């Protein structure tokens, strides 16, 4: 998985490319741990994300819980494979997907 981040004041944009699975989740988890302080707007760009397993969902839910307390979280450019995962797990109803 490739990850790119852009921070501007309280806004953090994270672009993911490849697979968010059990092996790659620790990479994103460490990044979020380091960067979430002071963030009021978290944006994930999933344009390049091709695969998502429950390990990734776990982290996305953690991020959503944190951002519900300190601001907002949006996920953009979700492909049909990842969208299906969000739909069957009910995540499509609890996330803001654009």
């Amino acid at each position: 998985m490739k990850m790119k981040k852009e921070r501007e004041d309280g806004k953090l944009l994270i672009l993911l490319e490849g697979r968010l699975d059990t092996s790659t989740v620790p990479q994103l988890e460490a990044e979020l741990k380091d960067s979430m302080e002071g963030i009021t707007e978290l944006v994930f760009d999933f344009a390049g994300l091709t695969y998502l397993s429950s390990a990734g969902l776990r982290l996305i839910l953690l991020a959503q819980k944190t951002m519900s307390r300190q601001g907002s979280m949006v996920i953009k450019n979700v492909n049909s494979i990842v969208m299906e995962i969000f739909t069957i797990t009910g995540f499509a109803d609890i996330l803001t997907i654009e």
Partner: protein
Amino acid sequence: MAKMRIDATVENLDRLMDFLEEQMKGTGFSEMLVSQVKTAAEEIFVNIAHYAYSPTVGAAVVCCEVGGDPLQITVAIADEGRPYDPLTREDPDITLPAGVRPIGGLGIFMTKKLMDEVWYEYKDGKNILTLRKRSVSEERRSSL
């Protein structure tokens, strides 16, 4: 039938993914279906890696068969760890709002949702979880 025996560790997940990809290459399965099978297999394999032999490491044997009309894939994942049927686990409540949703517990549920059939057997000291996915979905076939 293709078969692979590997240590059930998270580090070996990529090998399982490559193996499954190789089995489905050029078979006419859609990108969506390939991904569904890989996701379901990951959930089962990672469960074995985390729990079956804990705190030690043991093997997982993966057997994969592709064929038939309509085309289907069957993946059986076996371990010799402690007997456990993950399908007995209660389904999570997927209607809960984010604030009260428990973290985790979705893997087996996703596997059941993504596959056409999932079954468990305990045989000769082995846990065997089998996944099956057809290239033509149930809904589509009933309308043909």
